């Protein structure tokens, strides 16, 4: 019967999703417990901060620049209709700081750092390096996962703050080149209409996105099964889970802080 088969498929899918959510929650608990007496592997943390943060700067800056420019281009018709060029900076800045900036930077970060992290942990899992660590009485959570989670949390926040600035510059550049809006008009449009509250709204979001990306990517990395194909599949699952959690968190944070 078709109905029965659909029901079985739906149920299997639901159980799989529940298992993943439960696994991620468990890992969150383990990470928090490992942080309680904060014994950190400082060298590993610094290495991860550099690798995940500094080396993602070019792609994040480029993305942010285009995002800022895009928002100006999109708001152009509305601004033209109202005849108020002083509103261009308001519309673009508001959209970039609160929504587009954190989301696009988060998605890029998830693609570059989160996916890479899943691939790396996945490779270590399929080559049984995690078991090797356990055999040496080294806790993989404390040694491998905690520094990565912290590094992603810190670096996504930092990259979003830098990206916000780059996006505003991008908006001003595109406004000048495409719409002939003076630099000064743009500057005062930003300064008069944007509040620190808009900026912090985006920063809170980036902290939450960083946590979500870190936990999903680590979870899918350490649960890989089945060789090279499994690693590819895990990376795929990790980026999808990260994208869904970014959108859900965005929704809840927007409503919670309004």
């Amino acid at each position, binding site marked *: 019967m078709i109905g029965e088969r659909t029901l079985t498929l739906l149920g299997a899918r639901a159980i799989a999703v529940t298992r993943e959510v439960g696994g991620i929650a468990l890992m969150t608990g383990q990470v928090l417990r490992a942080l309680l007496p904060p014994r950190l592997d400082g060298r590993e943390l610094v290495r991860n901060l550099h690798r995940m943060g500094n080396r993602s700067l070019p*792609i994040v800056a*480029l*993305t942010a620049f*285009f*995002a800022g*420019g*895009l928002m100006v*281009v*999109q708001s*152009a*018709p*509305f601004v*033209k209709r109202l005849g108020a060029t002083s509103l261009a900076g*308001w519309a673009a800045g*508001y*959209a970039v700081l*609160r*929504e587009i900036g954190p*989301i*696009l930077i988060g*998605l*890029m970060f*998830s*693609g*570059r750092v989160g*996916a*890479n992290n*899943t*691939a*790396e942990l*996945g*490779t270590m899992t*399929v*080559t049984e390096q995690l078991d090797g660590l356990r055999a040496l009485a080294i806790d993989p959570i404390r040694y491998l996962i905690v520094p990565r989670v912290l590094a992603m949390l810190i670096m996504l926040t930092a990259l979003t703050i830098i990206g916000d600035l780059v996006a505003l510059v991008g908006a001003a550049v*595109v406004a000048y080149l*495409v*719409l002939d809006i003076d630099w000064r008009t743009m500057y005062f449009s930003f300064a008069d*209409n944007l509040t620190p509250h808009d900026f912090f709204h985006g920063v809170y979001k980036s902290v939450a996105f960083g946590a979500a990306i870190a936990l999903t990517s680590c979870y899918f990395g350490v649960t890989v099964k089945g*060789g*090279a*194909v*499994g*690693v*590819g*599949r895990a*990376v*795929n699952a990790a*980026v*999808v889970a990260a*994208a*869904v959690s970014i*959108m*859900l968190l*965005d*929704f809840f944070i*927007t*409503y919670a802080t*309004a």
Partner: protein
Amino acid sequence: MSAAPSLPVRALAALGRPVVAAARATLELWGVLIGTLAGIIRSYGKGGRRPRGAVLAQMYAIGNRSLVFVAVTLGFIGMVMMYQACLQFSRAIGDLSQVGLQFLRLVVSDFGPTLTAMMLATRVGAGIAAEIGSMKVTEQLDALRMSGVLPIDYLLVPRFLASIVMTVALTILGAAIMYGAGGLTAWLSFGVNPRTFFDPAMVQPRHLALGLIKAVTYGAAIPIVSGFCGLRARGSSEGVGWATTAAVVGSSFAVIALDFALSVGALWLFGGDL
């Protein structure tokens, strides 16, 4: 005699190496695009051979299996965007009757195609690179070549065609969900009358055309970039992981850059009245 090269020489080499690598990668990327287009012409030309049902199977893998993902993410982002927009409009202008008109214009000409494609770049791009990359490192591509089949023809052409069709289809669905979710938010949270909101007066054929062009372009770019990343995979599982990462970043960035180029181009074409 052969002393270590002096500092300026080393600095020049360090600067030049990424440039050369980037130029080579760009050439290779265009090679993949041209190879795919040639493969399409070959397979549909006289005496062309196509694996049966390959395009349909890929359409299922790319389209149907992304349906829930695209619907959920675009629904939520539609609600959030509408919420933020209403918040600002009620503060700055105090009039929410324009919100729906502007939102529909933006969804049709930009947010619908671009955000759908960003989501697909994540899911589909990673999938294509992981699949082709695993085949590369397990030497299945060499086996294909040995039996006289070009890997691009066999693997990338069906994905390319399927991705274009399915990106357009999912864009239409995603844009509709986004618009509906936005309208619901405006109605429930800000009391905007749905009849005022769901008014298509602002949308003109050029907005629809721009949205369609964007969807087709993204649908073509995602499999090309991710296929290119998969074909470059080296080593074992680590190489596949790297290829997948590169595919997600590359195709997401391609979507953003193409969006920017097409939007600016359209703005110029229509003299600022996009």
